[in-house]
């Protein structure tokens, strides 16, 4: 059937088109149908290439299906459905059109079989998602969106330059393993690294995600970084540097997360930390570790989405998101509290929750391949995740001191979306074989053995004990209204500051120059008359007189040549 041959991004783009002109119930149905119909279709697709064309002598493959792209395709369709359901009450046209376009771009990127198609969707991801940030309509979100867009587009431009080098080297645009053996390979690596939030390149994420709308952040958390993980897994498996980059990503954000006040920014830092686990998995490059990276991306899309949804619900209902303003919400938001705890347990990798069945694969692979110190770092970061995302988020939002805020649970569509995500977290945690059957490799891995369950439970319970102990001794850093400096300080404060002072200094030099001119004029009236503003030697001549003189000179040459 021809409809089956359509690439998965098409239903989303069509839905966006209709969403722009419809309203109310009709629009809701159209928006929900896109991921459902689109999602049926990767289910029925056997692997292979479905669309190939030639452009300027290069073979393009805009639609290719294989094991790796399929599992991301499933995850994206599930995420798109849940996030759309969550955002169904939103009446803002900008968001309702941008969201399916953004989700569609992500589908396009994971099913792209060549680098040029990837580049197109790479840029579309940036262009469509920025509207979810701007739609908040605050001055903060306006500037955060602009910074986000600049960095994302920059990543796209680097990708474009890289793919041109790569195409010149290899004569092909096919998107497969690339490796860091050439300039093109390095540039593409850097472009992927920006979207993947590598250390020092990560601030677009922690800057912009918390400034998006309550529903927009749920979409944002699902797609951009996961596309980046997918492309890294395809192009750079087994690149050892990724192990160290990933370990750094898993560790440094948790320090920032502990002192951050904006709870959605805490989640943004924890997002980087979770991406770190996957980057390590890709870097190790064994079947087990790649499986771990991919399955963890799948789970993270759901549990991180769930956490962002619960915080979005808090923001939507109370208008507040800072830990210092919240607390005691469990009293009137019991369901949201429960969903948040499920999400927290999943991200912390408690047994029977989804994080447990995927995170441990990466850790086991690290031990097997002899990365002892990396394993210790990941273990530290696993304890730290529980500390900031597992305890801090639910504790400061729903428990802690009573803020006196009494709001009910959010609208029914938001609750339903959170329920579906929470149910998936538990289902995958209890029946991991469902997820494992989708993975690119068959490793026969079983997470549920006594040793592993005990080790993980001990680690988590004693992290919790540390939290309790620190709180009882009043050593736990209180939530403070504050901004914490991160790398974005360099381009938000340092560089503008340097440029401003440079401009100011140039102005001073200009004034000194003027003063000098006047002094010279006073020194020598004759010189001033010749070289001054109205002097004969500084006057400008019309083009006509120049031409006249050129003709005269040429004529003299001519005459001289006859002599």
């Amino acid at each position, binding site marked *: 059937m021809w409809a089956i041959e359509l690439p998965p991004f098409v239903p989303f783009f069509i839905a966006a088109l209709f969403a722009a002109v419809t309203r109310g119930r009709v629009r809701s149905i159209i928006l929900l149908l896109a991921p459902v119909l689109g999602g049926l279709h990767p289910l029925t697709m056997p692997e292979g290439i479905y669309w190939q064309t030639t452009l300027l002598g290069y073979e393009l493959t805009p639609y290719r299906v294989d094991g790796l792209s399929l599992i991301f395709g499933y995850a994206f369709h599930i995420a798109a459905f849940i996030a759309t359901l969550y955002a169904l009450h939103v009446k*803002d046209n900008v968001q309702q059109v941008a969201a399916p376009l953004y989700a569609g771009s992500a589908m396009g990127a994971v099913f792209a079989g060549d680098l040029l198609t990837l580049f197109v969707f790479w840029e579309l991801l940036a262009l469509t998602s920025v509207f979810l940030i701007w739609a908040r309509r605050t*001055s903060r979100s306006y500037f955060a969106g602009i910074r986000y867009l600049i960095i994302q587009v920059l990543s796209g431009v680097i990708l474009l330059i890289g793919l041109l080098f790569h195409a010149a080297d290899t004569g092909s645009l096919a998107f497969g393993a690339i490796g860091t053996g050439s300039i093109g390979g390095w540039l593409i690596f850097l472009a992927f690294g920006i979207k993947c939030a590598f250390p020092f390149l990560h601030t677009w994420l922690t800057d912009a995600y918390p400034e998006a709308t309550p529903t927009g952040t749920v979409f944002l958390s699902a797609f951009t970084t996961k596309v980046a993980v997918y492309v890294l897994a395809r192009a750079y498996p087994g690149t050892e540097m990724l192990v160290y980059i990933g370990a750094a990503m898993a560790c440094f954000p948790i320090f*920032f997360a502990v002192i951050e006040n904006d709870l959605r920014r805490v989640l943004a830092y924890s997002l980087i930390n979770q991406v770190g686990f996957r980057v390590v998995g890709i870097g190790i490059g064994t079947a087990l570790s790649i499986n771990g990276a991919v399955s963890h991306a799948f789970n993270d899309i759901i549990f991180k989405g769930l956490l962002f949804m619960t915080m979005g619900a808090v923001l939507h209902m109370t208008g507040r998101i800072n830990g210092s303003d919240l607390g005691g919400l469990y009293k009137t938001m019991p369901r949201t509290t429960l969903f948040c705890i499920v999400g927290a347990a999943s991200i912390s990798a408690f047994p029977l929750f989804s994080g447990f069945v995927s995170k441990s694969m990466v850790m086991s692979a690290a031990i097997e391949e002899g990365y002892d110190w990396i394993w210790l770092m990941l273990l*530290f970061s696993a*304890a730290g995740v529980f500390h900031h995302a597992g305890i801090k988020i639910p504790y400061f939002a729903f428990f802690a001191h009573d803020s006196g805020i009494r709001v009910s649970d959010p609208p029914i569509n938001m609750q339903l979306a959170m329920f579906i995500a929470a149910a998936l977290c538990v289902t995958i945690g209890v029946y991991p074989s469902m997820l494992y059957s989708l993975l690119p490799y068959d490793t026969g891995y079983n997470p549920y053995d006594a040793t592993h369950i005990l080790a993980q439970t001990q680690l988590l319970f*004693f992290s919790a004990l*540390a939290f*309790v102990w620190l709180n009882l001794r009043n050593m736990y850093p209180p939530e403070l209204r504050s901004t*914490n400096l991160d790398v974005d300080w360099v381009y938000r404060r340092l560089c503008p500051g340097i440029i401003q002072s440079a401009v100011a200094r140039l102005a001073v030099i200009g004034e000194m120059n003027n003063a000098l001119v006047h002094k010279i004029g006073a020194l020598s009236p004759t010189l001033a008359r010749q070289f001054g503003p109205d002097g004969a030697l500084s006057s400008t001549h019309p083009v006509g007189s120049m031409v006249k003189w050129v003709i005269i000179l040429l004529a003299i040459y001519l005459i001289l040549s006859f002599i």
Partner: protein
Amino acid sequence: MNNPDIKHDQIKDDRVYFFDKPRNVKILMQVFYALCALLVVLYFVINRYTYHPWENLWAFYPIYGFVGCVVLVVIAKWMRTFLMRDEDYYDKVEERRLQEISPARSHEEDHHVGH
């Protein structure tokens, strides 16, 4: 920074909720401590196999988890001494720039919390 359009909420509420009773909190904490102790005891009961020599150290995971988190918090707290700024550290400059770009924008709009 006070948001002008925070949705209404400081409602007088005299009901007593679950964690308002100190007894419930105490029971919860005691259950939690008991579970921690149980987990350490299980270490000796369950027949474990290990991949790594460090895992055989006495109570490796509990100690690593506890010490790791304390170290995490202590370092994070210390980071506050040089990373923390006022809440409107960036906003001040950006608000000014926004006024230059579009002076007509009113303050209420700027703080609108989106839906």
